[in-house]
């Protein structure tokens, strides 16, 4: 008993060298990024082992959910409704630091903060999300800075700006959404957005059009359900063009340049190709196609940098695994379980996880895709469990209610 206490104290001093809050602890984990992945990891590590110190570094003052943000574009919900604070993590003893990590020294096991100072860690969790390959779209950055083209693919100021552009657009105008080649964040997201903007036009600007320019050969998610909704609800409003990859934009004329022709828009919403966020690149975590971070799916530990666990959209996706909020939240639980085991000197076991994603196709109707993923030792990755998973039988208001229930629940599971 005495011996155990001594060992704990010795462990705190030698493993982490951390003096935070003055209490002895087993080790310190630093989490970079407070989205669905990072916030969940911080909470669950503390829940499952309160003797581990957890510091969460997040640059924004509050969390804004990408899921349901398309409803803001239609005027069917508000930014306030889809935002949450970080205070809910206090009760788990997570130390939330509002700052930006500018550099990581994986050899010394420290992260550097923009406002100065280093934090030492025993294990690092990186949930940095995505950044964009703007250079694949000629003229994009200048056009975005002038406000004449938006992505709104990170919920926040661009979501608000895109809503304003849609409200200000003349009746009879054309909204163009351009979708990059998969993989990108939230596969059904662009099709949901096209549906919701169509619903808004149908109600408020009935002579207006929605043009979907998809770089992919077909819808990348819930194709049958979206096509059914479009033909039932938005005929004459929404037009879908596959194999239409954007190569550039002209902000001054709101024109999108495709490989073969140009299309002029009144509201131009171009979602650029994506990759793991800048800090992942800087840290050497990107392993594949200069875009994604390969990890060990039993622990979420980087295959490139030891002691660093990468979660969420930044990862090189496992087979048939989407870049989704549900996945980021459950990646965090794999990482939390592994980190707790490792810091207690035990071996982590693989964890089976569930994905569920809802998409709205009208203000109240939604549909869903689900899958269950388990560790497959011969392939060395997570794979969908045979015969499990699938999509909704049909879009419905009941599924719309479940979509809101899922959102409120996962926000709470991640942040409160």
């Amino acid at each position, binding site marked *: 008993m005495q011996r155990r206490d001594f060992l704990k104290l010795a462990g705190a001093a030698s493993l982490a060298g951390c003096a935070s809050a003055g209490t002895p602890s087993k080790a310190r984990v630093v989490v970079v990024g407070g989205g669905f992945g990072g916030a969940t990891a911080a909470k669950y590590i503390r829940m499952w082992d309160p003797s581990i110190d957890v510091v969460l570094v997040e640059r924004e003052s509050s969390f804004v959910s990408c899921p349901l943000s398309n409803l803001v574009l239609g005027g069917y919900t508000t930014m306030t409704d889809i935002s949450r604070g970080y205070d809910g993590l206090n009760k788990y003893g997570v130390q939330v630091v509002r700052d930006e990590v500018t550099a990581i020294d994986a050899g010394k096991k420290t992260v550097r903060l923009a406002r100065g100072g280093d934090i030492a860690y025993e294990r690092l969790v990186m949930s940095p999300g995505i950044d964009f390959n703007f250079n694949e779209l000629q003229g994009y950055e200048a056009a975005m800075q002038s406000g004449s083209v938006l992505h709104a693919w990170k919920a926040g100021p661009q979501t608000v700006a895109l809503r304003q552009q849609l409200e200000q657009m003349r009746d009879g105008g054309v909204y163009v959404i351009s979708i990059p080649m998969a993989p990108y964040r939230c596969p059904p997201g662009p099709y949901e957005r096209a549906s919701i903007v169509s619903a808004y036009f149908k109600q408020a600007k009935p002579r207006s059009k929605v043009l979907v320019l998809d770089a992919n050969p077909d819808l990348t998610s819930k194709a049958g359900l979206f096509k059914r909704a479009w033909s039932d609800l938005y005929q004459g409003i929404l037009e879908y063009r596959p194999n239409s990859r954007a190569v550039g934009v002209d902000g001054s004329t709101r024109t999108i340049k495709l490989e073969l022709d140009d299309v002029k828009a009144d509201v131009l919403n171009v979602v650029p190709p994506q990759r793991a966020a800048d800090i992942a690149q800087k840290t050497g975590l990107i392993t594949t196609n200069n875009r994604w971070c390969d990890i060990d799916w039993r622990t979420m530990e980087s295959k490139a940098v030891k002691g660093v666990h990468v979660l969420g959209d930044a990862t090189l996706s496992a087979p048939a695994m989407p870049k989704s909020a549900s996945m980021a939240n459950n990646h965090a639980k794999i990482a939390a379980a592994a980190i707790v085991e490792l810091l207690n000197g035990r071996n982590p076991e693989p964890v089976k*996880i569930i994905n569920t994603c809802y998409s709205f196709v009208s203000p109240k109707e939604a549909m869903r895709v689900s899958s269950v993923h388990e560790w497959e030792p011969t392939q060395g990755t997570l794979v969908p*469990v045979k015969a*499990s998973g699938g999509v909704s039988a049909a879009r419905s208001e009941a599924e719309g209610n479940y979509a*809101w229930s899922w959102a409120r629940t996962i926000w709470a599971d991640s942040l409160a």
Partner: protein
Amino acid sequence: MRCQIAIAAALACLAPAAFAQTAGARNLAASCAICHGTDGRAVTKEVAALAGAPREQIASRMRAFRDGQRPATVMHQIAKGYTDAEIDTLAAWFAAQKR
């Protein structure tokens, strides 16, 4: 480094086998929280509150979802991803949680 190994070994000795089993159940159950709430404590009235629900009820419903005997919007597809043993593990774990 030597010190780290010594401490890891010492801590490993303190971990009873029962803890590992509980951690396995806890980890398996954690994924359900995206819809059913942390530790199965439901956030909304749209979904079943699993925390503290009778073990037999959770297990029999999961099997009924899986076998297509109980109507569902999503659980019939998710339940097919779990073995009988996993369903029993989940049921026991959720039944033991505080409401």
